[in-house]
């Protein structure tokens, strides 16, 4: 037994130099805590969440919460989970198809040394610095009944009675649109820091020779910049894929718990409310675990497929 273990160990470490073997205890020391932390706070919690989805509040095997959640996908009224999913998917699509390309174009314009480059660079990162809480507060008051935007709409006769009384966020017909505008507004400058670094790494000679050949700005962007920063773009895209079914533009920030009274609930908002209710002791952890399992089951294949497509486009550019 001992001999076979020794043989196995020898097998694992064959091909390692003496120096490398000597370094192994140090490597193990460096990685011990992060791996232990990962096992506890990721692996264990995920397994526990899976178990919770198949048990009742007393820990007995039950599919009650799973069935409840599945039924809520076909429930009538405003609490239909498909509705929440579609809202998340819609906001995610806006983020990928609008915010992301715009942030690339913004970074490119800054990269081309637009006037006031440094000022705009800092300004666009402002929501990231000051934080969404501050901008959320400002946005809420701007759109409130006595805020400047509603005041303006009233003056030009575009505000309904309901809108003039409740403000844009608290009016049923404008609430969700207002959340979407908030998400778009705040995230336009979102990726500028990372994309700036990616563009800065493109060798200047490439631009010089393109310029000598009379390559225009559109062609330079489409045929040089985008392909050359594709590794960064694809990584950013792949990172964002994970949030496809739970994406949220900040509904809790703008509505708190009150969002349940408006047609603004997304899957991300709903899951956060459930977790918050677990922390208050008014909900058991089984319910979010069951919903999470259902979402994971149909999100993972979509994410893997999209990831495969994105990686197919990657050319592994090295420079």
């Amino acid at each position, binding site marked *: 037994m001992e001999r076979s273990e020794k043989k196995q160990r020898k097998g694992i470490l064959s091909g390692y130099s003496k120096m490398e073997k000597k370094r192994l205890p140090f490597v193990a020391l460096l990685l011990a805590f992060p791996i232990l932390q*990962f096992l506890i706070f990721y692996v264990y919690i995920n397994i526990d969440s899976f178990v919770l989805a198949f048990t009742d509040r007393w820990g007995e095997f039950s599919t009650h919460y799973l069935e409840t959640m599945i039924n809520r996908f076909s429930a009538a009224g405003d609490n239909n989970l498909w509705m929440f999913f579609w809202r998340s998917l819609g906001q995610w699509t806006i983020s990928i198809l609008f915010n992301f390309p715009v942030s690339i174009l913004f970074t490119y314009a800054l990269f081309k040394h637009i006037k006031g480059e440094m000022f705009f660079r800092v300004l666009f990162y402002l929501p990231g610095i000051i934080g969404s809480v501050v901008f959320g507060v400002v946005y*809420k008051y701007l759109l409130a009944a006595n805020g400047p935007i509603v005041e303006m709409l009233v003056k030009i006769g575009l505000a309904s009675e309901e809108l003039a009384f409740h403000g844009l966020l608290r009016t049923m017909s404008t609430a969700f649109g207002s959340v979407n505008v908030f998400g778009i507004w705040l995230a336009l400058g979102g990726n500028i820091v990372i994309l700036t670094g990616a563009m800065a790494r493109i060798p200047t000679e490439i631009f010089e020779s393109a310029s000598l050949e009379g390559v225009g700005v559109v062609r330079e962007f489409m045929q040089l910049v985008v392909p050359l920063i594709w590794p960064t773009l694809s990584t950013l895209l792949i990172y964002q894929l994970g949030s496809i079914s739970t994406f949220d533009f900040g509904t809790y920030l703008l509505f708190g718990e009150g969002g349940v009274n408006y047609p603004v609930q997304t899957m991300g908002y709903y899951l956060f409310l459930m977790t918050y209710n677990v922390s208050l002791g008014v909900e058991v952890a089984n319910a979010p675990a069951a919903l999470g399992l259902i*979402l994971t089951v149909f999100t993972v294949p979509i994410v893997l497929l999209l990831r495969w497509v994105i990686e197919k486009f990657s050319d592994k550019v090295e420079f």
Partner: protein
Amino acid sequence: MGTKTRNVTKPSKMQLQKGTKVFLGVFLTIFILYGLTLILPVCWLLMNALKTSRDYLLNSSFSLPEGKLQWINFVHAFNEIKYDETSFFGMFFNSVWMSLLNIIVNIGCSTLTAYAMARYRFPGKTFLYSLAIIVQVVPIIGTGGAAYKFMANLGMVNNPMVIWLSWAGGFDFSFVVLYGYFQSISGQYAEAAEMDGASQLRVMWQVMIPQAIPAIASLMILNFITAWNNYQTPLLYMSKYPTLALGIFSFEKISPFLQNGIPVYFCSVLLSMIPVLIIFSCTQKMIMTNVTAGGLKG
């Protein structure tokens, strides 16, 4: 031939300049408009922060403050903004220690993990790296409830002595950036130090980590800003130690009922912005040049 070349080159250069000029002109207009939407609301906030509560509620929200500017509202903000029994200064203090602790444990662990993974060859390295990427990319949803239950059972909720354990993840986004950065650093100095008899710890601490300081420092600042602005984690796990972000988020519900009401609340919002603005303006150049340079190469 010469003339021909000149004739061909000149218009194309002019075209290029014209195209670039149009592009930059269009984007300058967009930038100014978008920039205004970011600046004007903050100016509006400041203007209304200097009003009396009566002035804010009765007059147009576009109107300038009536009479004397209410700078005293900032003093009221310090005195009146509270989350349960925690004062403004208490929340400020909580924001500082929580953000600092967060960056120390999080970036500390990510640095050690990234260093070990980028510099050394060891069994299971490829598996570990793939795992680190997969867990970040493939979503497992709805574990928040289980995480809360687990941490509550261990007595970690509202416990500053152990809450940091949950922040000490070594396989997150910072790991990806630092892994790339360490890979781009030449190992020559480290090898020379090893030849001179330096221990692995010394090589890491005195040779390799100093070379990665720009990336580590930039990530620390970015993580500090994120932690400073995070209101959801303190809301769930540290509500007895409210931060400024949580206080501002929650105080909005009761601000209209206070004596000095909404303008004072606006003052607290403005005050909460100052520390991160100072930190970012002092370090923005370093962040812009270092975070991504070695970073996200797929």
